[in-house]
């Protein structure tokens, strides 16, 4: 209640002023009496506006204390105060008023505990001399007024400054937090907001909002108050750039422009562009999940045209493998798998996804069709979306996470602790899916397992706490302040999902475009602008918001053409940076000064081994020649793929596909049956070349081109030649060379 003392003070000053003027007019008389009249009465203490923020500020209702599921020490309140009615009952009413003594406020257990006048497991939380303590005393004196149904709530938080560059030894910066309420009032809540730094290696933040730079990098200070969250960005530059460095012109390409701007704020300089062979291998893996062929490499190297990289990218985008590779990605995201869909359903879903990518359907249409899907899961691919997740809650979570990058899961049980999403937002969003039903069908026999997705004329979603029927509402949309019974019938125009689909892919819904843009940037650059790439909450801010906005604009301007987005990113200098870090940017992993190597995805890795060895893995019940990136789901048996982190497609999280190293991977690569068999296979690449009596040098070059996408260096050549000179069985030597290359980081990583 910071404004109140201020108000009091200012009116005091005003009266003093009036008093002194009056005094000047009168003949001098001592002592002058200054009547202070009608000081404004203090506003009554409000439970939601004043009491709960104190509980939140001092950590009483955090998850590790009384906000945990079972409370602490027999006292339970809601996490971060999301349920004022429940909190009120537990503080005031429960256990015959054990915690409150209205006639003797300071004897209330509610105060004696946090003030440590009786033993308190949580220690001293509230100083009896503090303003917060006094305010709680006043609340009890006033008879513990209960939560008001129409109390104004916080609609917006703002931090001042929103963004700040602090050099390593600069003095600390104090943050100020202003809250805007639904009744239009604003209030300085710096003393009540919870403030934490997201990366205390970069800058620290005290509970009072004093930010001190620690070490180079960028972090955000997460500010939470009244169910809203905001951030303040703090940059601690890596170095001070010289005037000449700062004066050099910004690049023309908007992607590079925004990236460079951020790098300069942080005192970073980017690495050189990568060489042609690295470029070819990188783009081929990233766009079509396939190694470039030796002849393609040779042709590219001799090409002298200035726009050969552009042409190459366009070439890749029109290759058939594009659909294979991106079907794999989208199949992961949409969780096409035979365990939940049945074999027929899985094929129908995967084939539909592939068809969309093959035709390069704009992603808005793609998603629109998916959301509105109905009918047989066997004959209409997209309807399988409603079988993967088949109840309103799961559908709401999947839809928001996959298409909007919003992880709503927390709000299923309580208001999101780091986001503005409330439980009400969650169930209002879920209400879009309230009328979707699955019905069994005998079209393919009694045991055929076909399901039909249909829109029922019944079904509602209710709020789990108050049982109210939820009106289907888009995330972040402010419903007109109509009473519940005055809202228009959501089913008046038939399928209520129509409104959802229209809103979801609308150009004005920045969440959608930003989410797709961030995901694709993350796929191509190895790290998202917001990272993890599917957690786009306010408190996980993008490192470069302007860049993200630009990419979202690119997507929208190109009518949601995904190939255009890939083209834009891949043609930027930022994407084409060398992965070799310079002395100045070696500490950077988040600002794209150098390309961050990424381990090949399991399927791509297996295909690459096959390609380098000139062999072909046979997958059960799939025709010979099917590549790993063409597999329809993760249930095509392959220990190798599972070891290297192929996702089971059970959860809608990018984290399910993992590039985490483990010992089993190393053993499989070095001594594994699969690699050994393929390297020396009788009809493999080496056997064939040796049988064809190719020269040692030609064999070596082909091995290098097919395995690493480049020519061997002079040194590498001379080492191999040295070994060959002493060896009788050259085939064995080449096999050793190949297995060595396959086990090299250069092979395992897209760099």
């Amino acid at each position, binding site marked *: 209640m910071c404004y109140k003392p201020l108000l009091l003070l200012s009116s005091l000053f005003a009266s003093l002023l009036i008093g002194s003027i009056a005094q000047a007019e009168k003949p001098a008389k001592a002592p002058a009496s200054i009547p202070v009249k009608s000081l404004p009465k203090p506003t009554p203490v409000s439970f939601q506006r004043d009491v709960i923020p104190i509980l939140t500020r001092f950590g009483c209702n955090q998850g590790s204390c009384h906000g945990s599921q079972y409370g602490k020490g*027999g006292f339970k309140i809601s996490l971060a105060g999301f349920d004022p009615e429940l909190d009120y*009952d537990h503080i005031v009413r429960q256990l015959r*008023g*054990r915690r409150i003594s209205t*006639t003797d406020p300071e004897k209330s257990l509610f105060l004696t505990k946090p003030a*440590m*006048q009786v*033993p308190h*497991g949580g*220690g001293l939380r509230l100083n009896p001399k503090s303003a917060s303590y006094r305010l709680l005393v006043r609340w009890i004196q006033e008879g513990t007024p209960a939560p008001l149904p129409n109390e104004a709530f916080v609609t917006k938080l703002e931090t001042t400054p929103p963004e700040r560059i602090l050099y390593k030894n600069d003095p600390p910066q104090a943050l100020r937090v202003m809250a805007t309420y639904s009744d239009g009032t604003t209030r300085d809540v710096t003393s009540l907001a919870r403030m934490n730094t997201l990366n205390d290696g970069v800058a620290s933040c005290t509970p009072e909002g004093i930010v001190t730079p620690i070490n180079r990098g960028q972090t955000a200070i997460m500010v939470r108050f009244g169910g809203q969250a905001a951030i303040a960005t703090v940059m601690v530059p890596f170095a001070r750039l010289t005037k000449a460095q700062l004066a050099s012109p910004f690049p023309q390409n908007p992607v590079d422009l925004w990236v460079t701007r951020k790098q300069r704020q942080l005192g970073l300089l980017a690495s050189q562009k990568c060489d042609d062979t690295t470029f070819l291998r990188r783009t081929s893996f990233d766009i079509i999940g396939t190694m470039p062929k030796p002849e393609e490499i040779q042709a590219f190297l001799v090409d002298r045209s200035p726009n050969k990289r552009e042409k190459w990218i366009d070439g890749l985008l029109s290759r058939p493998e594009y659909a294979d590779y991106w079907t794999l990605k989208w199949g992961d995201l949409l969780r096409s798998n035979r365990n939940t869909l049945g074999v027929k359903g899985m094929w129908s879903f995967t084939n539909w996804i592939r068809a969309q990518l093959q035709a390069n359907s704009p992603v808005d249409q793609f998603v629109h069709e998916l959301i509105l899907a109905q009918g047989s899961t066997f004959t209409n691919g997209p309807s399988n979306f409603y079988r993967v997740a088949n109840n309103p809650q799961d559908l709401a979570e999947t839809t928001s996470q996959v298409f909007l990058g919003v992880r709503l899961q927390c709000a299923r049980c309580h208001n999101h602790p780091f986001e503005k999403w409330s439980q009400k937002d969650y169930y209002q969003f879920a209400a879009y899916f309230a009328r979707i039903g699955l019905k069994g069908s005998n079209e393919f026999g009694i045991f055929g397992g076909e399901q039909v997705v249909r829109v029922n004329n019944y079904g509602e979603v209710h709020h789990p706490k108050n049982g109210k029927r939820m009106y289907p509402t888009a995330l972040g949309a402010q419903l007109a302040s109509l009473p519940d019974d005055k809202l228009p019938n959501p089913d008046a125009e038939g399928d209520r999902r129509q409104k959802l689909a229209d809103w979801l892919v609308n150009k004005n819904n920045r969440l959608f475009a930003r989410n797709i843009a961030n995901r694709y940037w993350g796929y191509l650059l190895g790290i998202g602008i917001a990272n993890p790439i599917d957690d786009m909450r306010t408190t996980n801010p993008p490192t470069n918001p302007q860049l993200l906005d630009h990419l979202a604009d690119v997507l929208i301007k190109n009518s949601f053409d995904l190939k255009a987005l890939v083209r834009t990113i891949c043609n930027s200098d930022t994407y084409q940076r060398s992965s070799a870090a310079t002395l100045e940017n070696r500490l950077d992993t988040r600002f794209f000064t150098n390309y961050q190597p990424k381990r090949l995805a399991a399927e791509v890795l297996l295909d690459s081994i096959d390609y380098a060895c000139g062999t072909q893995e046979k997958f059960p019940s799939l025709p010979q020649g099917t590549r790993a990136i063409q597999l329809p789901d993760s249930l095509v048996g392959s220990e190798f793929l599972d070891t290297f982190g192929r996702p089971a497609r059970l959860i809608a999280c990018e984290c399910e596909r993992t590039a985490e190293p483990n010992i089993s991977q190393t053993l499989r690569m070095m001594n594994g049956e699969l690699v050994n068999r393929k390297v020396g296979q009788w009809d493999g690449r080496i056997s064939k070349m040796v049988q064809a009596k190719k020269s040692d040098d030609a064999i070596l070059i082909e091995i290098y081109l097919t395995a690493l996408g480049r020519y061997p260096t002079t040194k590498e050549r001379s080492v191999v030649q040295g070994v060959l000179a002493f060896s009788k069985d050259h085939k064995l030597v080449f096999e050793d060379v190949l297995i060595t290359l396959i086990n090299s980081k250069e092979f395992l990583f897209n760099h």
Partner: protein
Amino acid sequence: MKTPMLWAGLLLWSLPCIAQQNTAKPTLTYMKEIKPLLKERCVVCHNRDSVKNLALSGGLALDSFVALKTGLPNKPPLFVPGKSGSSELIRRLEVSSPALLMPKGGPALSKQQIALVKKWIDSGANPGDTSKEGDATAILIEPFPINSGLNDLLLSTRIVPLPEMRDKQTPQNATLQYALKVAPLPLLTSIVFSPDGKWLAVGTYRSVTIWDTHTGQPQTPITLLNSVQSLAFRPDGQVLAIGGGAAGVSGEVRLYDLVAKRLLPITFKGHTDILYCVAWNREGKLLATASHDKTARVWDATSGKELQALKEHSDAVTRVCFSPDSKSVYTASLDRNARRFGVQDGKVVRTFSGHAEAIYALALSPDGKRLVSSGIEPRLRWWNPEDGNTTNYSDGSSGQVNEIVFSADGKRLASVDASGRLRLWDAGGGGQQRVLEGANDWLYTVAISPDGKWVAGAGSEGVLYLWQTDSGALRLQCASWYPTAKGFDWVAITPEGYLDGSPNWLAKTRFRLQNRDLAPSLQVALRSALKASETILKALQGAPIEPYKLMPVPAPKAPLPKPKP
């Protein structure tokens, strides 16, 4: 930080004694200089009651010289006489690491205070006269709270307003209300009728008011040091047991002799947190108590000796009662179980499990053959006390049930819940008979008069409601305040609009219609017209009373504003 409250709690309700004046002595002693310091800053956590709570005390007690000298087992002593530099006690007061610094989480001791401890250790750590340690602490009796009178206490009547009192917003069915600027009142936690039905005792924060049900007037309240949570008349009606305590600090029972009108000098020591329930056995020899400290205890009521401590519950014990043969006690707990213990051996005879939420209410029928429990789950659950099986359910309560009582004849059951409703149930079939309305907030406690004709309920409003059981009619609403030097304030109001009370509060009553006070001239006239102690008597005899009818009063000085057409 303040400590009187803790010490007041530890020696709850014992007589105050005056601390002796300090006479200056040349040497520092533990008793004179160090103990008060430790008491102020350390003993809140480091005391003998909390040594087992390692999270709180780390196993260390500092509330006596012996404890301070002993320190922690298998650890170096806390202090070495003569060597403050190598004393752990000093180190922990000065260390820079916040994880090690004591007091934990609180501001460090001042430099002067640390210097004092150092000086004491260096001068040989003289204990002083520790022979009286443990009972030499003076307690401070805090003054009674003065009536804050910030808010209006509102009590409804059925008086129909005159047409000229209304305005456009006034609803058709609006009636007059009484308003008294005396709220917030302390909430009422326990009500109980005396066995002869003459007295109705009402417990609240630091006092018990005993209303005379024959006259409708209260006696001067019994005042106590801390919260009162539970009352029980000894079956002979001579003694009232008062259970309560200080939340988080202590729980105790006091016995009040109604004949001699004084508290008996028997103490029942052992509970470490507030008591929620106290109960007599049929002979009036034994007392049982239920406490937030997770235990129930059985006591010899004449000596105050603890006979059994029943520690099987894993959360606060909310209710306790004796079986008619005094061989068992039944308990209910927030741990979702009710239990039956043998009084002789203190062993669990039966566990009644089935509740999915905490139990707040428990009652045993007078014949001991039916047990009823309820709580956060509002349904009443009936048990067979012998085999522990659930025999019946009674649905209908809305909101947490806080107390259940059987009528003396065992035919009826009354319950109160968080919706502010008192419900009467058929104790035979378990069906709901009647819902008694009138209260506006949580009801915590309920009592049925011994003749079964009256039922009383009270709760967080601080108002006592009295209904007639058979008709279900609300007959009286009563409220009172702590006694002061000037006297004792109370008011009793019938729904028909008649009232009686202390002069001070009668003068404070205002008449309101829809958040608007009536004209001042009307207030005086109405007040004198409606003060009628004989009508209160009539109400208590169960006689019908006509609602007061307003007559258009010719107002001499301030004419009423005419309502606009």
